[in-house]
């Protein structure tokens, strides 16, 4: 029985050893551990073949809420959905939310996740003011200036178990987003729209259709607006193991998506859930890819190297492997906190692929291109990048090694750690 799986369900690892973390837990020297939240990473940074999972979702209490100072202290197992449902009616929100609300705060910090508003707010750890972590050396309360704090942000859960965090909030006038849509004819245009108009809006994202000749896209921008609306209750659970995604269905899906946006008003107010978490309505959409799972590949290129995207697109087009879903986002100049944090100023492209043999060769080739251009691959969404790719693109790894706990290890780390 495999239960501890990542979101893309590849690779599948037969390891069911787990422990609930509690106050009187003690680390055994001979074992390695890995914190496990909701298993929403698209990579093996949340998997371990030989170690024990430390489960935290039961640590989800709000320890302190200070509306005046606009901060909240929560335990690390708190799921974003619950936190937002607490905050939004009270006129507050998290400045950075990723594409799903079903992740824990601990996971958000460990992967230093980013959202649609990087150009305004930076990534998740830019909002974190204090942390409490526990590792084989003891329990630590960390402030922003502590070196261990810096290592833990984006530290992939390898510096210890995050117990609680204090996070800065933003005030919001209502619970809806005023969304504006722009249509782009090709990849270049999508990049231009994203970069040019981003300053006018707090949030931006671009969806791309790789099934069109020039890669048409829909760029959506949004700001919180004063209006209030109810979230839609619609949510679907796919109880079958049948594979739904194939060439035909992903072609149709992309066309339908485009059509749906064409007929929509280009400016509208929608509930925050619909804007930030459009895929969450299908609770297990990852099962659409069948029992073998899928891969997501997310690369980041510095602004000055964005012409390299042209080569990436060309290579993908000529390979005959078309991504089911493609999303482009821009990263602003705000410096990330962590040593292994992903963001640098530039553009990031995330592609969902069905798994096939040629895919791995294609992605290796693309990895090289990205790294040569000064870019990097997102560790939270990786199951396959080579050690050289990782070490080349994350130069602060050696500094990180000083803080990595000897009792914490993941499958990802085993793969990419320096000798």
């Amino acid at each position, binding site marked *: *029985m495999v*239960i*501890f799986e990542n979101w893309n369900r590849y690779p599948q690892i037969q390891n*069911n050893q*787990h422990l*609930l973390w*509690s*106050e009187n837990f003690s680390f055994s020297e001979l074992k390695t551990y890995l914190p496990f939240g909701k298993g929403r990473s698209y990579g093996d940074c949340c998997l371990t073949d030989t170690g024990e999972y430390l*489960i935290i*979702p*039961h*640590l*989800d*209490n*709000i*320890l*302190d*809420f200070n509306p005046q100072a606009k901060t909240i202290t929560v*335990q690390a197992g708190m799921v974003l959905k619950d936190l937002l449902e*607490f905050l939004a009616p009270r006129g507050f929100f998290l400045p950075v939310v990723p594409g799903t609300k079903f992740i824990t705060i601990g996971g958000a910090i460990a992967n230093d996740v980013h959202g649609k508003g990087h150009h305004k707010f930076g990534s998740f750890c830019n909002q974190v003011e204090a942390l409490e972590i526990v590792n084989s050396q003891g329990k630590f309360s960390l402030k922003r200036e502590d070196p261990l704090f810096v290592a833990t942000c984006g530290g992939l859960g390898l510096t210890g178990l995050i117990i609680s965090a204090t996070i800065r909030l933003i005030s919001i006038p209502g619970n809806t987003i005023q969304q504006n849509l722009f249509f782009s004819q090709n990849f270049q245009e999508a990049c231009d729209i994203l970069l040019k108009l981003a300053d006018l809006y707090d949030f931006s994202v671009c969806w791309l259709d790789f099934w069109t000749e020039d890669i048409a896209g829909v760029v959506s921008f949004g700001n919180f607006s004063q209006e209030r609306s109810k979230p839609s209750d619609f949510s679907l659970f796919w*109880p079958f193991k049948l594979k739904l995604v194939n060439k035909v269905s992903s072609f149709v899906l992309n066309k339908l998506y485009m059509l749906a946006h064409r007929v929509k008003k280009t400016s509208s107010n929608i509930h925050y859930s619909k804007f930030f978490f459009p895929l969450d309505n299908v609770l297990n959409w990852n099962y659409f890819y069948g029992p073998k799972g899928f891969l997501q590949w997310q690369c980041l290129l510095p602004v000055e190297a964005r012409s390299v995207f042209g080569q990436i697109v060309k290579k993908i087009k000529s390979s005959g492997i078309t991504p089911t879903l493609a999303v482009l986002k821009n990263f602003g100049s705000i410096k990330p906190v962590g040593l292994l944090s992903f963001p640098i100023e530039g553009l990031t492209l995330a592609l969902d692929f069905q798994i096939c043999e040629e895919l791995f060769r294609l992605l290796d080739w693309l990895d090289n291109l990205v790294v040569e251009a000064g870019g990097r691959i997102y560790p939270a969404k990786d199951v396959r990048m080579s050690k050289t790719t990782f070490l080349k693109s994350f130069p602060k790894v050696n500094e990180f090694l000083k803080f990595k706990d000897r009792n914490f290890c993941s499958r990802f780390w085993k793969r990419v750690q320096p000798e």
Partner: protein
Amino acid sequence: MNILCFGATSDLGRAVLRKLATANNSFWLYGRDKSQLTSLGLDLKNRGAKGVEVDCFDAEKKELPNLPLLTIDLAIICQGYLPKDPLDFSELEKVFDVNFFSVVRISEYLLEKFKQQKFGTLVVFSSVAADRGRAKIGLYGAAKSALDSYLSARRQSLKEYPLIKIITVKPGFVKTKMTAGIQGPLPSTPETVAEDVIVGLAKGKDVIYTPWFWRWIMAGIKLIPEGMFKRFNF
């Protein structure tokens, strides 16, 4: 309202308590882990609860909890223990202590108080596993069956007290820390269960199946003749 909860730090307990955390409600929380209880207390306070008291209580020890001297409007018992191996008889005592004996002991104690008050609502978490014994659910199912039977008996015995209510909650497979590492059929979340409990409370139901479809699934499963049932593997 004055609300008591046993096994408060369980996932189901927390989910229900959070739904009830409003300015009119005060809470008395019982559980084993003091630090988790304290954090939960803070959480309920931050969500707007009027007051929170916490008290350590171990369901495995044959003791009675310290009840508040005030009137009790609602008591929720959601402690539970699921052994790793469903038919591990070395766990027999623990399974029955936590899931049955202790629950009955607390219920009797509370119902005595309810009788003096002449009102009160008792919500007890059972399980759909109680409806028919299966190899995969083993001792746990047996203990919950006993619990179901006790609750139904007690409900009948209290018919002279129209304002005392006993509610049996029967969740299907819920993803919680108790079931971590188990892949069950049609999984639901503590959130859904909590919503159904709140609705059931307002409607004054006796038995709440959650999600609702389990009532019909279990009704079907109960109809299968034993000769056929023993061959099944679910």
